[in-house]
């Protein structure tokens, strides 16, 4: 067992940390306050290779491994969780599924512009009536002479107003009401119309919109994987995607810890630094311990994925633990800062608001528990059957 990062992973982590702390973190409070999507940032991330970290070089990426990508998401989210969300959706939920499920032609056509950061990617699954029960979606695609005509409405689409490529899910079999009638498509910006920008509790530097697909005609070459196998694409995407969100949660919690620790060493009450009080020391000890525990689960899930081993259960465990830890420990950071923590003079209230979403998107904590339980019971079933 070797817990050390490789030289490449360390360098990529150091580069991202330096860039994020210099070019992102100083702006994060302003972007949050103004609810501004920092469009100008993404060409800079692209120039460094951060929009296609784990995409092979032949498809325009940097060719690093999945754990390197996870380290990047952690460091970006430590500076600004909204930026982390934008990059996570772009990569985990759009670029990588096309790479995994696409034909050679689809990979060569769609992946390089995404990996080079020339276009942003989005993932369009959720609808008003189809959240955790994603299989009940109503957006429909009807066959026509040389392809499909797609009509429907999607909501909570991260990057939806800025994306050039959409991974979109629609029902192609009206007779089948569940997930088995769903197909995945690759769409361009021209096929969709962004409507309402969502107002959110946090993650304000990321953009979340509703989109309409109004009779968009697409060719057969835009079906990803096979017709009616869209749900396999969606679930495969979420298997890897939730590891990214878990890394985001760890990054947010780390930022909260950094602020709380620095504050505790500076703030004096009753003639002492508050870090000299055991009450504060114990909070910091718990924070650091839980952050490290979550980080280990996240790195392990990432490692399993890049080794090609089963990672559905471990990824869900990482996300469940990391997201609940982040919500709890960002709250503890506020507590250490006291009244100051509740104000916008310090970033911890933003970390708290940002952390909450990690318990909800890419599968709620309840869905993660469901996934974990299923993987536990399914493997138990197999073990019994094998006997």
């Amino acid at each position: 067992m070797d817990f050390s990062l490789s030289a490449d992973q360390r360098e990529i982590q150091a580069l991202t940390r330096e860039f994020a702390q210099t070019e992102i973190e100083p702006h994060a409070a302003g972007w949050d306050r103004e609810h501004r999507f920092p469009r100008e940032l993404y060409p800079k991330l692209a120039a460094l290779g951060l929009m296609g970290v784990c995409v092979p070089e032949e498809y325009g990426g940097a060719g690093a491994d999945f754990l390197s990508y996870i380290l990047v998401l952690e460091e970006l989210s430590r500076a600004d969780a909204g930026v982390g969300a934008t990059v996570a959706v772009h990569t985990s939920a759009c670029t990588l599924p096309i790479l995994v499920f696409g034909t050679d032609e689809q990979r060569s056509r769609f992946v390089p512009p995404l990996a080079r950061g020339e276009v942003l990617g989005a993932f369009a699954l959720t609808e008003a009536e189809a959240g955790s029960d994603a299989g009940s979606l109503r957006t429909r695609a009807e066959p026509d002479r040389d392809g499909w005509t797609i009509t429907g409405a999607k909501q909570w689409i991260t990057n939806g107003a800025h994306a050039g490529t959409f991974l979109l899910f629609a029902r192609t079999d009206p007779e089948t009401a569940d997930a088995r009638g769903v197909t995945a498509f690759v769409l361009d910006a021209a096929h969709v119309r962004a409507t309402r920008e969502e107002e959110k509790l946090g993650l304000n530097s990321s953009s979340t919109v509703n989109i309409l697909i109004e009779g968009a005609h697409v060719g057969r070459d835009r079906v990803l994987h096979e017709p009616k196998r869209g749900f396999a694409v969606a679930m495969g995407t979420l298997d890897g995607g939730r590891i990214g969100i878990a890394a985001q949660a760890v990054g947010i919690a780390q930022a909260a810890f950094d602020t709380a620790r620095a504050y505790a060493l500076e703030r004096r009450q009753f003639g002492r630094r508050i870090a000299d009080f055991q009450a504060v020391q114990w909070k910091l000890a718990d924070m650091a311990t839980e952050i490290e525990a979550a980080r280990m689960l996240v790195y392990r899930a990432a490692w399993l994925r890049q080794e090609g081993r089963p990672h559905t259960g471990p990824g869900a465990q990482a996300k469940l633990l990391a997201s609940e830890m982040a919500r709890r420990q960002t709250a503890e950071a506020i507590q250490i800062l006291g009244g100051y923590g509740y104000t916008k003079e310090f970033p911890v209230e933003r970390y708290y608001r940002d952390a909450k979403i990690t318990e909800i998107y890419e599968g709620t904590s309840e869905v993660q528990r469901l996934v974990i339980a299923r993987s536990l019971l399914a493997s138990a079933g197999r073990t019994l059957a094998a006997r």
Partner: protein
Amino acid sequence: MRIAVCVKQVPEGAAKRIDPATRRLDRAGEGALNAYDANAVEEALRLKESAGEGEVVLLTMGPARAADAIRKALAMGADRAILVTDDAAAGSDLLATSIALARALEREQPDLVLFGQQAADSDGAVLWGAVADRLRRPLISQVAELTLADGVVTGKRQSEFGYDVIRAPLPAVVAVSDSINEPRYPSLKGIMGAKKKPQETLTLADLGVESDRAGEAGSRTEVLALSEPPSRGESRRIDGDGAAPEAIIAFLAEKRLV
């Protein structure tokens, strides 16, 4: 055109600790590329890019771990690296270090040798002078703007009262100021490609440096004692409550500074 850049690995972050037993800098922690050297690497890359040809060679002396610092400079875009590492070189002062670096540079015969203005750990800011002297090459230091044309290097040297514009024929040695440029971030492709670039490791014997001219034996400086810097005395804090400007002016007047 060949440009050599001398770089150093320094302890990461601001934390500098001197080991009271050895009176040497504690290098046990994580190391990083000396930030001032990143300016020299950046300038070398810009000169190469604007010339459209050439080679940027890194040179460092240090423990084997110093290869980590070189990796970052390779990731930024340098072409290859030379690491001088030898147990006998441990504890080398500026004088001893200058001998080893000069010997390595004589092998390479670069048209231009670049240094950062100083190392962030020892803050000597004289190594470039010693190396230039050993090579018998012209030296321009504290250069805030650098141009190369027709075998001549022109440097705009920052001074306390303005700039000196100095010209020197190549080959030459230049120490750049940290205001000369904004070093680029290494890209992920650069990082992934760095390990494939040639890295040569040399011993003192390879360079023909006699053992009595290296390490502690070859050093002519000796640390006699270590002490805490003197306290700066009582400080006074003036809060911005409206009357602050008057209070500051009164303070400066009292000290006869205005």
